């Protein structure tokens, strides 16, 4: 029996984690163990990583090896079914609130692309333009425009067009999708949704009735043009852990309307350049590395704004070593440096004081620049026609190949 979060999660002393707000206790770090405990999901341990490697016959993604994707719900069921020859489909999404995407935004997409390639399964990507229209008070046209712009960056992550369907809520909601929304909505009381999401009497009804929109892509019958006749198909949702509330609600409802519960695989939050306690915000360009940053920008931002755990003087540093717990360059390398051996070496040398902050930053700048460059080149190859094709309601006959 799964824990379902009933009380309002916004208690003063605790950290706050929900789809619209993430803050640690007393300006400290997010306690992920507490979070897993509170949400009731499971830790993703090494045995899973090994199993994925065996099943997919390729090295596991760097995010799995480094514990970036660290929690799950029912991932083992997905793997069991896969071993028996039963495929699944992937579902992830983005709330297009701004044009400027930073590396943190790309993380779930990079991981999802790996999952698509490794397991050879189809993917649906939801752009919640309606959500942003409601929460960020954007005009309908603006949120639709942002959705298309974001779609280009998402496509640039390398998804296979013959296995991927991207849709925006404003375009797609209706038909079978809407029928499922109503089925879900009927199963969630007003009190329940207030409990899960913290709505108040002042919030408009758009917000209150939004959760089913994000819930129903977990059900294959929402996509009759893709999964017609495959009502039994399971769904795996890679997302950041702050999205968990939506899917806790979905998992609660699913068996009541005769569907499989969607499985989840969840990631840590990507820290801001200024440190774990800092907030990555779209209004502070120096809090994150954007996909539009030039090599010069990246160099500047890392050198001037990255919070480090190095000591104040070289002598002290050689003596005491760096504080790896708070060092942002090390954390970023943990996310993005592919080579496990090299990362270990850097951590050891830096922690012991043999390597200086400047050297670690230099390596980070190289790694980030390569990623951003590659993304930019791929982005340049995405045309409006390609976005139209990805977003067209069309059959995907080869989606399991």
């Amino acid at each position, binding site marked *: 029996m799964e824990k379902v979060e009933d009380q309002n999660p916004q208690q003063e002393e605790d950290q706050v984690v929900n789809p619209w707000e993430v803050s640690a206790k007393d300006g400290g770090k997010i306690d992920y163990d507490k979070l897993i405990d509170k949400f009731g999901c499971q830790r993703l341990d090494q045995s899973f990583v090994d199993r994925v490697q065996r099943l997919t016959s390729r090295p596991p993604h760097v995010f799995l090896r480094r514990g970036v994707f660290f929690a799950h719900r029912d991932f083992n069921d997905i793997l069991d079914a896969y071993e028996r020859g039963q495929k699944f489909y992937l579902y992830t999404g983005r709330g297009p609130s701004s044009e400027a995407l930073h590396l943190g935004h790309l993380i779930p997409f990079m991981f999802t692309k790996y999952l698509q390639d490794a397991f050879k399964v189809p993917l649906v990507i939801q752009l919640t333009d309606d959500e942003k229209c409601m929460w960020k008070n954007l005009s309908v046209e603006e949120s639709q425009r942002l959705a298309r712009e974001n779609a280009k*960056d998402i496509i640039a992550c390398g998804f*296979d067009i013959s296995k991927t369907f991207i849709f925006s809520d404003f375009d797609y909601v209706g038909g079978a999708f809407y029928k499922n929304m109503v089925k879900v909505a009927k199963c969630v009381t007003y009190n329940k949704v207030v409990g899960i999401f913290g709505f108040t009497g002042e919030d408009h009804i758009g917000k209150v009735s939004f959760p089913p929109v994000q819930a129903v892509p977990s059900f294959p019958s929402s996509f009759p043009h893709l999964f017609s006749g495959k009502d039994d198909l399971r769904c795996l949702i890679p997302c950041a852990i702050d999205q968990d509330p939506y899917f806790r609600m979905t998992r609660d409802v699913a068996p009541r309307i005769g569907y499989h519960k969607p499985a989840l695989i969840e990631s840590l939050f990507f820290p801001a350049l200024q440190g774990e306690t800092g907030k990555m915000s779209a209004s502070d*360009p120096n809090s994150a590395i954007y996909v539009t940053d030039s090599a010069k920008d990246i160099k500047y931002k890392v050198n001037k704004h990255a919070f480090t755990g190095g000591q104040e003087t070289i002598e002290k540093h050689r003596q005491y070593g760096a504080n790896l717990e708070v060092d942002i360059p090390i954390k970023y390398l943990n996310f993005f440096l592919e080579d496990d051996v090299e990362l270990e070496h850097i951590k050891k040398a830096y922690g012991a004081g043999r390597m200086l902050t400047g050297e670690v930053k230099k390596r980070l700048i190289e790694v980030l620049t390569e990623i951003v460059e590659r993304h930019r080149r791929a982005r340049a190859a995405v*045309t409006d026609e390609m976005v139209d094709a990805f977003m067209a309601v069309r059959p995907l006959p080869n989606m399991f190949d």
Partner: protein
Amino acid sequence: MVYSKDQLLARLKELQIDFSQYEHPVVLTVEAQAKYVGNVGGALSKNLFLKDKKHRYYVVSALADTKVDMKVLSQRLGLGKGGLRMAPEEALGEILKVPLGCVTPFALVNESASHVSLLLDKGFKTQECCIFHPLSNDMSISLNAFGLDKFLKSIGRDPTYIDLEANPPVGKDQPPDLASLVPSGSTVLPDLLEKTPSQDSSGNHPSAGNNSTAVTAKADKPSNAVQNVKEKSVNGVRPLIPSTDAGKFVEELLDRTSTLLLSEISEDSIKRHGGQLGAEVANNIKKCLREDLKNLATIFKNTAYTEGFYAGTHYQPKRL
């Protein structure tokens, strides 16, 4: 729609533009062209296809005798001293839709060239007839500057004739006199070589001496100015060209592989691995390039699929 030579000639006739046409073997240079049409009474033209550092394109069409100084032109356009260079071969096909040696003002009839700026030598106006290629180099057509104007106006272009040999000073108090001829707007076209990610509609407003990214910390949104897509990536590889040309695709793959291969073979590595160097290098190449090449292949696949999708959605069923 890509215009053919015959369609162009038909268009000229429709517009009642007087011209003479001369067929000859394919020529790639003005000298070669002169051998066949040098004596027909028209003035030969030389046509340059240029691009600037911000990937904007220009066709400069001049009398064969006019001296065109690229440095001066670059300054007059407000691009600084070395801002102009010859556009790469691929651009001829992609943007102007003409073969090598066939740059001509008539190429601007193609949609893909709608953002290309046209600079015409004022010397054309004093000639009775001028000679250009009509979209292919096995023919030359001779027509009056008025005729050329009429054609350009019919495709929505305002013909601008300039004194290409002039060298006015450009400085603080003397703005570049040809700055208005620099293409504006950052519209992204499907066949464009280097596409800049479409940022918001502030577009790009080139003016003499403007730099796109200033790295001063700004409290507002991150820099929306069009980023200079660098010609050399971190790996020293040419930037990606969105196309479904299998040949180009394979060249790109081979380029990357051979670059890596060459870097792996050094005196040092030969000493270290001796006879085993082959296996070692092969392994490294696979390891390093696997993901990169897969990504390139996915982009190729997506682009080809998109072309098919577009064709399919614009398919006109057979009339029964």
